[in-house]
């Protein structure tokens, strides 16, 4: 089983909830299909940060990371979860 599978499932769940979709394919292009616009992208980023306890810095923002559940899962696995101290620092 791929180590990313739990992340994928959770990302899929966050994407469906944020974009109010019933289901979505793992590699479906959210931008190309018109499901994602600038505002829903921001909402999605916030939801992912909360769900995975990560911080997406403005300078690290690459829109291609949000093109599909697959690319989002890859991005999240690259980012380390925040420690309580780091959370404290930016709250």
């Amino acid at each position, binding site marked *: 089983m791929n180590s990313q599978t739990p992340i994928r499932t959770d990302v899929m769940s966050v994407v469906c909830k944020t974009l109010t979709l019933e289901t979505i394919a793992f590699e479906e292009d959210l*931008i*190309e299909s*018109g499901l*994602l*616009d*600038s*505002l829903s*992208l*921001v909402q999605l*980023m*916030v939801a992912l940060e909360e769900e995975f306890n990560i911080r997406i*810095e*403005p*300078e690290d*923002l*690459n*829109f*291609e990371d949000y*093109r599909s559940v697959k690319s989002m899962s890859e991005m999240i696995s690259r980012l380390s979860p925040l420690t309580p101290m780091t959370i404290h620092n930016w709250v």
Partner: protein
Amino acid sequence: MHSDTNLIEIHKTPKLAKQAKHQSISPAAIEDIDAVVALSRKYFPRSREYSINTLKKRTTELYFKDGKLLPHVSPIVSRSGNGNVNGFLGVISKQFRYRGRTITVANCHHLMATEEARKQLMPIRLLQHFLSGPQDISLSDGSSESTRLLWKRLGGESVTGESIYYKIPLRPASFAAGHTLKQSRNRMSKGVQFLASCTDSIAGRMHIPHFYRSETGIRLVPMDTELMGDLLELMKPFYLFFPQYDASDIERLFYLLDGETRYGTLYKAAITDPDDQPIGWFIYYARHKGVCEVIQAVSLPGRETELYDSLARHAYSRGGVELSGRLMPGQLQSPFTTKAVSMPARMWTLMKSNDVELKHTIQSGNAFLTRLEGDLWVL
């Protein structure tokens, strides 16, 4: 810094790389004006109050001089694969002085994108491109909540103290009727508005408080370029962060203000006390039986009440029903707030800078940010 014809991102897959080639963001050129005007008329309904030719002329005057972009930071456009303009972000830059340094401020406005461009995330891409420009500080005046969300995600922040708008009734009955019956255009609503107008008129003649504006003893002096320059100099010592204007800047701003016809008649005056000592000035558009939109109302510290009284009386005598404008931080405890019926943060002032000290200066109300450089009267 991005080059003039930069692509947006380095993409990872062949499919995405192909799309990247077909999406670009670059400084607007004078040849783009037609497309920018078409976007503006589509997405900013108020711009339809201008003829297409007037809108083209004003847009050109705002961003270009002798066919070339004005210096510093420029407006940007995005293009689709076939080269058509599908998004725009207006940018005006201004030099400020801050602790002996010259600071370049870029003020952005009128973020627009076609439906097709929105699907390519063009609004946030345009903002990201703008925010990564060479300016020392990026500002946006009068931004919507949606833009604020995008801006904050890109590392910016809102300046709450500069985002407060006042709404002050000058003719209370007409003000209340107008807001209550805003959407209604039937005969009964006209009747109610007529009755409200009569109530204001009678109450005003009877000198009933709130319905009447008494003489203030303050003198009004017609504003010209030279006087405005003098008044700005007078105000400079009270702010840490202050815009640099020369006579030609002020002349140009007055020219742009004079050309705006949608908000009513423009009035600009300096106010002085009975000893001819300056107190401040106001610039606003008055609409008879309508909103008087304040562009600038500025006074020396501690003279806010005199400023307010003279402005309110002036607008009242021009038939204004309501005074509306953006509060300056020094006016927080003044009639501009105590007389206001609502002060919603309906439009945001947004800021982004890497200079922490400068950001603190702006957040703490020590910056002279006015609507003169804003987008109220353009596009």
